[in-house]
């Protein structure tokens, strides 16, 4: 134990000596959380809409006004010629175009069906499907009003009073699901990538050999090097959690101790992965590449952070079990938002524990074979 302290001290000294990195580590995650928290959402609103109005009548204008009166559409102006449609949809400057034919108002007055053409940029399928739904709904509303006028009867605003209620996250605010996701991304950066690089740095500089001839077991060395990062990572995770819930006014339903346990377990797994990578890589460059490729995009895409796992093809779903972020996100969301206790996430906890033990064991094995020199 006494030989462990100098290594820890040296590592702490190295962290403090580089205040820029420390500052980046402590405050940038918060900054990103605030920026992303306000920015990201999968809501479909502000669809850029244009119209090609061949009719130019009071009726057509009032129809188009119905579109722009909603928050779903942003008015991008009238088009003059149909040739413009191609260019605007292709460049993405406009996402939907309503074409009002020249006989629109005439047909309405005669009581015949007036046909509208609607062109939608379907490249973003989610946006396309929703935009189509909104447009149909608005046009149908217009139809109802016209019918009312025609037969001199009023059905009123009646209909269905639709009340969606969202549990656990009433306003469906993105910070609520962003916080667990961002914490796992940040832990991955600080624990996996940073750990791997800091151990490989010693290899690269040749200082590892010096340390190995010192009366110090490689395992002690690794512990000494990772303890400061572990503490730092836990501090960052807590800061993101606390500051995030204060800034975005999120009530954490579950126990802090439960959150801490899950986070610590995930963190140990990440450290294990970082150490394991350091036994494979010979240079910080390679460590950086392997660690980032294994963690960055998979944590973003395969963990259920952005894309629902339920939707993935089965063989990809099987792969998601290999990434600890999956378990961590599930447990963290449940504890934070649903107030669930640890007992609801025993499977996830076991998986995280298994992952950590497996990687630490593998690393020890690699180290015995001299993977650290």
């Amino acid at each position, binding site marked *: 134990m006494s030989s462990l302290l100098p290594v820890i001290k040296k590592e702490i000294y190295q962290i403090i000596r*580089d205040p820029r990195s420390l500052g980046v580590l402590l405050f*940038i995650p918060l900054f*990103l959380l605030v920026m992303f928290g*306000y*920015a*990201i959402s*999968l809501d479909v609103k*502000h669809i850029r809409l244009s119209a090609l109005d061949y009719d130019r009548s009071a009726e057509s204008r009032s129809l188009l006004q119905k579109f722009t009166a909603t928050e779903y559409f*942003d008015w991008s102006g009238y088009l003059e010629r149909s040739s413009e449609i191609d*260019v605007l949809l292709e*460049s993405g400057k406009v996402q939907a175009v309503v074409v009002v034919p020249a006989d629109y108002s005439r047909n*309405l007055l005669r009581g015949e*069906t*007036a*046909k*509208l053409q*609607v062109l*939608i940029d*379907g*490249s973003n*399928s989610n946006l396309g*499907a929703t935009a*189509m739904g909104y447009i*149909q709904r608005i*046009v149908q509303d217009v*139809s109802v009003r016209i*019918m009312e006028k025609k*037969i001199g009867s009023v*059905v009123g605003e*009646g*209909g*269905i*009073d639709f*009340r*969606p*209620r*969202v*549990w*656990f*996250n009433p306003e*469906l*605010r*993105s910070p*609520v699901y962003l916080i667990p996701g961002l914490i796992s*991304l940040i832990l991955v950066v600080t624990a996996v990538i*940073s750990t791997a690089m800091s151990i490989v*740095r010693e290899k690269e*500089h040749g200082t590892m050999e010096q340390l190995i001839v010192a009366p110090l077991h490689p395992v002690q060395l690794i512990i000494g090097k990772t303890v400061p990062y572990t503490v730092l990572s836990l501090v960052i995770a807590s800061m993101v959690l606390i500051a995030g819930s204060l800034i975005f006014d999120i009530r954490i339903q579950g126990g802090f101790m439960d959150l801490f346990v899950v986070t610590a377990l995930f963190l140990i797994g990440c450290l294990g992965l970082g150490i394991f990578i350091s036994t494979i890589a010979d*240079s910080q*460059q*390679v460590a*950086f590449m392997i660690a*980032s490729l294994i963690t960055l*995009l998979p944590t973003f895409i395969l963990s259920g952070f*952005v*894309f629902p796992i*339920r939707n*993935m093809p089965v063989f*990809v779903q099987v792969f998601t079990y290999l990434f600890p972020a999956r378990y961590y996100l599930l447990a963290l969301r449940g504890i934070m938002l*649903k107030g669930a206790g640890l007992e609801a996430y025993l499977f996830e906890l076991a998986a995280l524990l298994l992952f950590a033990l497996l990687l630490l064991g593998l690393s020890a094995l690699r180290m015995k074979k001299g993977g650290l020199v």
Partner: protein
Amino acid sequence: MSSLRFFLQKEFAQLRRDKKMLPIVFIAPIVQLFLLGYAANLDVDKIPMAVIDHDRSVQSRLLVEKFVQSGYFVESHRFERLESIDKPINEGEIVIALVIPPDFQQKMESGGEARLQLIADGADANTATIALNYANVIVSRFSSDLQMERLIFQAAAAAQLGGVQLEAAQSPNSRSGTGERQSFTADERSGAGLSSFQMPVEIEPRVWYNPELKSRNFMVPGILALLLMVMTMLLTSLAIVKEKEQGTLEHLDVTPIRPIELIVGKLVPFAIIGMVDVFLVLFAAWLLFGMVPEGSILLLVLLSAIFLLSTLGLGLLVSTLSHTQQQAMMSALFFVMLPMLFLSGFAFPIENMPVSIQYVTYLLPLRYYFVIIRGIFMKGADLTTLWDEALLLLVFGIAVLGLSIARFRKRI
């Protein structure tokens, strides 16, 4: 110029010596494209839904049917009491619950306001958002369909009394041009009331570029772009600082090599690797997903080269500004890669962001490249619409490379 040649030779020799790097650089993007391309999918369908129907009327059944027919929802549970949904929603077995009040049909038919409750699991916020978008559209279509039918009844009654003839044509009610799953436009008007009437206004919808509205067509080109960005940033952000840390950069100070030659010398090998990756991922997209650009492949390759200029430049800039490789790694991740991942419009639409953050997105080259790669892949776009994005990328690339050279000169 000859010093540049020697420097390049040295750089290539170094690359070859690093046995572990080259396989990573060429194999990783393909493996990632394979997994991530299949995983990145926002087509949320078959959302498990619980139904609590207190009304059990024709109308309530019809509404549930509309939800199921849409293909977006499946009725996975049916409960008598609201309390029963606690457990399945807590365990993530259902995402939404539709609660139909006892007076649903009566209110709807008497012209009153029927209250419909929908409960969504907000812990899975992405699925919930999409599910609510769909539900919103289904319910309001249902509601206005019913209003329309009531009007028709009234009109028919008036016609019988007053002798006004009302045309009752078969209703083509907004024919769908959007493939099988797109039910918002489908005209299955089974069950209640009149089966045919004439709508005053009808829509002829056309979905361009992605008629089946498949998320994958949008996401796979996005993943290609993300992979190119990540690979080039990983390659370059440590390139110069590595030499700084190891002290080999000082050796270069005494050679007659100029900063511009040094930056170019560092850039060229990575640019070649980057271009090989472009070809690899384009080929893999065809092989794995059968996706071929609608537009010119040549143009895509050319604009990808310009995009790589900007990300390689950003990586080199990070590298010249950092003192240690750890610093460079943090800066590359926190200042470049994560913002690009979240804010460039890969999954989260930029138009939804607050205006102040939309300005930030203009600084991300990936934003322009997403427009380019999706435009060429899906829309067959060419330079007449992509010239501004291409120009901005080019300016951005030259600017960051210039900045790296300038910073580098100052240091020496």
